[in-house]
């Protein structure tokens, strides 16, 4: 286990009754990074986060957060001292006002950032004397984020931080995260199925499906590795089996054959030229395409 990793999981497994929520999940989240944790609904994102924060115990495998074992009760308290968390539903104590829940949360963190509290209260325009159950989802999201950001922690774990928010509120939340990270030394690990959020702020990503990591790495590297090769033939596109490394999907439609590779496009296009296409193009791949293709391969 490396010291430079904020989160590391090795062959992490979780079984609920007859369902395998995690089936050997491997994650490596570098310290200081903004890490997007992508997956479809039910892929195992929330289960992973709950294991990392000691809310759920793994069935097998290892999970370490900030170098500490997540499944050890004592270490988990230390992990939570050094971690801020926003849950998917942004549920807070409905009998407390905004001010009360801020004071309540601040009491658990010796490094509570009163300067940030003032700044975010002002920029989020949170009504101090309003009960949390009277806040809109957007306001509750901002309050949840304030409660996580002001803890003065090394790691932020955000489960679907923009879930249920309108585009304006979503943008505000994402900007707050980016601004915070630009001034504070911390790691952000956020789960989402909104690819635009990841595209906007993440440096590293992992795509999981059915409880397993299927793609992982620095987003720029992945964008460099993934290439779509589009070949157009005079007649019906031939049924080709490519031997070039990294080919993960080939599609034929009339005269057009499209192949997706996660090892660049050079070897693939060299092999394709032997079949005599009238045109051959190497196209960049968007994160959405990487996600959809990776998940489709798993299916």
């Amino acid at each position: 286990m490396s010291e430079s990793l904020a989160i590391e999981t090795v062959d992490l497994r979780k079984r609920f009754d007859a369902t395998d929520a995690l089936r050997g999940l491997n994650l490596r989240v570098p310290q200081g990074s903004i890490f997007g944790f992508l997956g479809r609904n039910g892929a195992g994102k929330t289960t992973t986060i709950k294991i990392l924060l000691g809310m759920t115990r793994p069935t097998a495998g290892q999970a370490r957060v900030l170098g500490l074992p997540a499944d050890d009760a004592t270490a988990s308290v230390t992990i939570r001292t050094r971690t801020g968390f926003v849950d998917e539903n942004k549920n807070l104590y409905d009998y407390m006002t905004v001010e009360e829940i801020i004071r309540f949360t601040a009491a658990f963190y010796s490094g509570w950032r009163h300067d940030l509290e003032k700044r975010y209260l002002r920029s989020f325009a949170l009504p101090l004397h309003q009960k949390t159950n009277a806040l809109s989802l957007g306001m509750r999201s901002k309050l949840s984020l304030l409660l996580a950001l002001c803890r003065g922690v090394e790691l932020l774990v955000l489960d679907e931080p923009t879930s249920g928010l309108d585009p304006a509120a979503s943008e505000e939340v994402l900007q707050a995260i980016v601004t915070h990270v630009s001034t504070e030394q911390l790691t952000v690990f956020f789960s989402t199925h909104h690819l635009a959020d990841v595209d906007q702020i993440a440096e590293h990503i992992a795509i999981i499906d059915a409880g397993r990591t299927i793609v992982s790495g620095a987003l720029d590297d992945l964008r460099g590795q993934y290439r779509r090769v589009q070949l157009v033939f005079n007649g019906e596109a031939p049924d080709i089996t490519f031997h070039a490394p990294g080919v993960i999907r080939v599609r034929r439609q009339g005269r057009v054959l499209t192949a997706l590779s996660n090892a660049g496009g050079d070897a693939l296009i060299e092999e394709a030229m032997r079949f005599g296409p009238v045109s051959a193009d190497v196209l960049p791949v968007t994160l959405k395409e990487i996600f959809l293709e990776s998940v489709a391969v798993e299916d």
Partner: protein
Amino acid sequence: MLWHKAWLETRGRFFAGLALSLIVGFGVIYDFRATERLLPLVRSMDPAALDTTGPIGGAIKEAIAAQQTFRGFVWWQWYRQNLTYLVVIFGALLGAGGLLAKSGGATLFTLSLPVSRHRLIGTRAAIGLAELLAIAVVPSLVLPLLAPSIGQSYSVIDVVVHGACMFIVGSVFFSLAALLSNDYADMWRPVLIACIVAAVLGMLEYIPAIAPFGIFHTMNGETYYRQAGLPWIGLLVSAGISAALLRTAAVNLAHRDF
């Protein structure tokens, strides 16, 4: 701050229990006047003419015997009946909820705080038990305070001893509801189950062979009332059961997946 959170979550139930108990406590004192007026009539009856055989007859005879004095009246009406019911019901109400119900959907927020689950349930139990102790003792203090207004007196020591019995046995129903709350997200099923358990235990005490060992026999402090000392064994057993239930609740919670 966990203390404050636990207080905010339970204070509504606590104040309801305290207010209801105080109202009933006042009622008991001023009810004695009406009972007192009936006593000469009861005393003038020919015992031989009363059918005091069977459980109902026996109960009538026991009630008449106990309520000849203010102390007996208080024990019969207050400790043996009203306060017992109130402490059982509010014990269960205060024990229910815990980490799951009252926090609404904010359980994950609670679990994300840097505190152990043992501390979470320990704080919640400590606040709830303190509130139960107040309900078991404070309303009874109106007895020594207001008894002189009807020409009677009542010992503070009696209040303390009976309050201790009420609290210790009442904590069993508190702990049972706390344990059940680990499995039920709402607070009403644990309360209902705890009250059903109490009702079954109460009915069992109608069996003469069981009555002296019954939990409510300990709870109402009958041995103390009859000058036979404190029900030490019953109190120790109740405290042990209560502690075991709370310990089980804490262990269950510590191993639970959320």
